């Protein structure tokens, strides 16, 4: 059995290597070109810094707005997707919806929304909302499923309504977790939003793609450096906040 599993895994990997044309020799031959591009990126062209910063700001706005709206929209969806609080007729369809929409990446949503509402940051915001709502709902529902039953029993025993039980028995237990998930999503959304510009959905990615197409590597490297700085700053802020929550 174990031997068979190893065999299958090796065949699968071997096939993948052959079918993708993975070739270490080709990679080594290409290495000098990577250094060549890196060399041509230096020094960064700081004249495009204002544009890059503006693009970065747009990207942060897209992620911030999209995550905030999704954090709220995911609340009801998360509750009805939790096995221990939702009735089965709600729970099963909700889970199917979550898994369906979660399987599509933000970038794919961006393509659809650009086609629907036109170019610019707005379809980017919509794309972030579409993906984040379902992925947060999934995380929310898992947090709800992990709660301590005791306080819920105690609130139920007071004669509370279902809504009150959720508010006083469930919410206080999951709220810090929810906030921590939202911050974590904000971090990943900043990263996801950096490439939204590639498909016309606004933000810093637009500048990166433009300068790369124009073969203006010094300008592109400025944009890249701004992107890295932006992601690092948001990550640091967000993890500081998350530490305080738990």
């Amino acid at each position, binding site marked *: 059995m174990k031997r068979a599993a190893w065999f299958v895994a090796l065949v699968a990997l071997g096939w993948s290597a052959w079918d993708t044309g993975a070739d270490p020799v080709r990679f080594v031959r290409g290495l000098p070109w990577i250094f060549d591009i890196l060399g041509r990126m230096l020094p960064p062209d700081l004249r495009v810094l204002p544009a890059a910063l503006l693009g970065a700001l747009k990207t942060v706005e897209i992620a911030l707005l999209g995550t905030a709206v999704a954090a709220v929209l995911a609340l009801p969806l998360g509750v009805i997707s939790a096995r221990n609080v939702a009735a089965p007729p709600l729970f099963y369809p909700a889970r199917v919806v979550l898994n369906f929409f979660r399987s599509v990446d933000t970038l794919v949503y961006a393509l659809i929304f650009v086609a629907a509402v036109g170019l610019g940051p707005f379809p980017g915001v919509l794309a972030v909302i579409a993906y984040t709502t379902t992925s947060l709902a999934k995380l929310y529902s898992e947090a709800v499923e992990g709660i301590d039953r*005791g306080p819920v*029993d105690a*609130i139920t025993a*007071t*004669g509370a309504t279902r*809504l009150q039980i959720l508010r*006083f028995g469930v919410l206080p*237990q999951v709220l810090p977790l929810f906030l921590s998930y939202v911050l974590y999503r904000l971090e990943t959304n900043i990263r996801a939003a950096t490439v939204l510009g590639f498909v016309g959905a606004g933000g810093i990615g637009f500048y990166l793609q433009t300068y790369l197409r124009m073969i203006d590597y010094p300008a592109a490297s400025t944009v890249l450096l701004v992107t890295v700085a932006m992601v690092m700053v948001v990550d640091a802020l967000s993890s500081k906040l998350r530490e305080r929550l738990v």
Partner: protein
Amino acid sequence: MIHVAGLRVVLPPAAVILDAIDLTVRPGEFLVVLGRSGAGKTTLLRAINRLVEPTSGIVRVAGRSVTGASASELREARRRMGMIFQQFNLVRRARVIENVLAGRLGYVPSLPSVFGAFPRADRELAMACLAQVGLATMAERRADKLSGGEQQRVAIARALAQQPSVILADEPTASLDPALTGSIMDILRRINVERGLTLLVSQHQLETALAYATRIVGLRRGRVCFDGAPGEVTPAVAEAIYGENG
């Protein structure tokens, strides 16, 4: 005050937890249910307010049908029954006063309460209940900052805030330091004597039960095996309740 007839609880797939329980608790009694762990004490208490759904049988509390009650009738019946748990079951991250206020949830309008709005009279009542268990100065503390004994007193205050006719206490001292057992049981006795509240308390400790109860019911393998005054609990009776044989 509490009337139980023919109560049977079968948990899936086929575990008979309680069977053929007939029990009438008269107003003002301090009734202690004795039994080994697994005898069905907890299930009996939880079946009375339907935290556990009875398989068959009748439960009436303070003249109201609990079994067969609609969702809103059940909530109305529940608010007349305070419940105290072995693990306190406070909302740990909430403040002490908020935990006590939860005892008013069955009385206050649902929607405003969800937004934290409680009528002034209810807030005053909650403070008074907290004062009764000697914790008035702890109102603003977070519940999980309190010691175990204090947390259980908060739980008692929450039950009192329901202005109940009956208090169900499930092993209220089992997870406390033995030195604290007396202080919690003393509070329960005071409630019983001063307010004339009917108490149904489960205990596995014989000495504590005999010291506080006005009536003892022995439970063994889900059936009542003794029902009488504490003075009637002879070594033979104790053996029948706790003994390894039979």
